[in-house]
């Protein structure tokens, strides 16, 4: 069961799951949606069109603009789902209108990278 819906929406798609938190500023190319941080476990992958699962957002407050830019550049994820919500991800998704969910730990753990799932 989804624990909480922060930004409403219903989506079906393929999961891109990150084991590490994400700093949306400086580590994602906002024009392509690719993760540029070489030390990140999703390094080189694109978040475009995915259901992006990650533990939570970290770092810069300006990451919210990156989320908004990803949407404007048509390279945003279909939706995002986290274990813990931070203000940067919540406000970025709210403005960009990207569905955002908090998942229970059971549900979060049961979803695997590459799974086809529906949320919302």
């Amino acid at each position, binding site marked *: 069961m989804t624990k909480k819906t*922060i930004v409403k929406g219903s989506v079906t798609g393929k999961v891109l799951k990150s084991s590490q938190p994400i700093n949306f500023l400086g580590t994602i190319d*906002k024009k392509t949606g690719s993760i540029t941080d070489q030390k990140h476990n999703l390094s080189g992958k694109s978040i475009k069109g995915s259901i992006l699962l990650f533990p939570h957002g970290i770092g810069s*407050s300006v990451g919210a*603009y990156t989320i908004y830019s990803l949407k404007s550049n048509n390279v945003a994820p279909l939706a995002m789902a986290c274990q813990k919500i931070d203000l940067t991800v*919540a*406000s970025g998704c*709210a403005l960009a209108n990207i569905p955002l969910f908090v998942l229970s730990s059971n549900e979060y753990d049961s979803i695997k990278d590459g799974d086809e799932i529906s949320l919302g």
Partner: protein
Amino acid sequence: MELTKDEEKSLNGEHGEALQIAYRILSATGEATDAEKLVPIHWAHVSGVNYNTIGDAGEEFLATISKDAKFRVRTTVNPMGYDKDSVEKFDLDENFIQKQESIRESYKKMGAIPSFSCIPYEIYDMPREGTQVSFAESNAAIYANSIGKLKTNKESAFSALASAITGKSPYSDLRKDDSPTMSIAMKVSEPNELTFGLLGYFAGKVADKSVAISGVKNMDKRCNKSMCASMGTSGSCGKFVLDDNSNASEKVDFDEKELQKVYDELNTAESGDMITLGSPQLGLEEMTDLATMLKGRAFKKRCLIFCPRAIQEQARSLGYAGQLESAGCELMSDCCTCLTPLVTKKDVDSVTTNSIKGAYYLKNSNGLDVNLKSLSDIVRDETS
């Protein structure tokens, strides 16, 4: 979250599009943090000013919202991309300058104070203890909570902007309960600002919203700023307290081994082609300190110093700016090491700095290698 009738009307668009957007953001962040209500805030500090970070989408958004948004509380702004006094010395194209000026104009229209600084706490008088503020710019939020005894969550660029437009913020998280859930024992002896930066980066990774640090007696301003900035970079933690007797349930050590691990993650070069100081921007105390350390010496490489315009003016009238320039430093206002478009792969491969936050973004965003050193080691090794 419960909204008043008036807030509800704003959310439904009855008071215009800008307020509707602002309340939409606050509703999402309020929902995310289980807030019951919105409370008034007395100062907003917004990030998202540098065209290098917010891009075309951000520039267009600000141009649109500034048509009918007006800031209701004192609002200061983060650094932008360049210092207009020296912009011609750098290789920035006309599009960048045009977009950056549009962003500056949008914030001005909404009523922002043109501070262009990530250290508002060193330029303006701090409100009294316990005042609710809304600070984006992670180092400033952590500094406001930890040193300034103010109340803010680690706001995002949009949540602080929404607070500036509405004068409100969800009453949740650190605004409500800021007791640490983790205590970190500092086991590294003779720490300097680089050590505290590494500790902050470690703390940000392991701690939740608030953290206690034991084994530290006092920290000077340079150490405090360094720790606030690095903590804000690596995590979502928004406050620290120095406390040897914390009853936090979780306890971890920060020893030489952990220090080395963080250092090895961020230090990627043996030396730098140039030096940058100021992420966060330097305050007056750090400028005067540095001027004293540099007496009779001069940098052997290019050295950029980033500071707020107000601080540069003070330093100039007191004679310190001149001393720093004589020692080979270039003083830059309104911009910052962090996410600067002015230091790029075209000119250099590596940079020497004492800033952990600077190191993280110079590497990840600018693609440069970084040589991390304390300020005293930089002066010892890089001047003659």
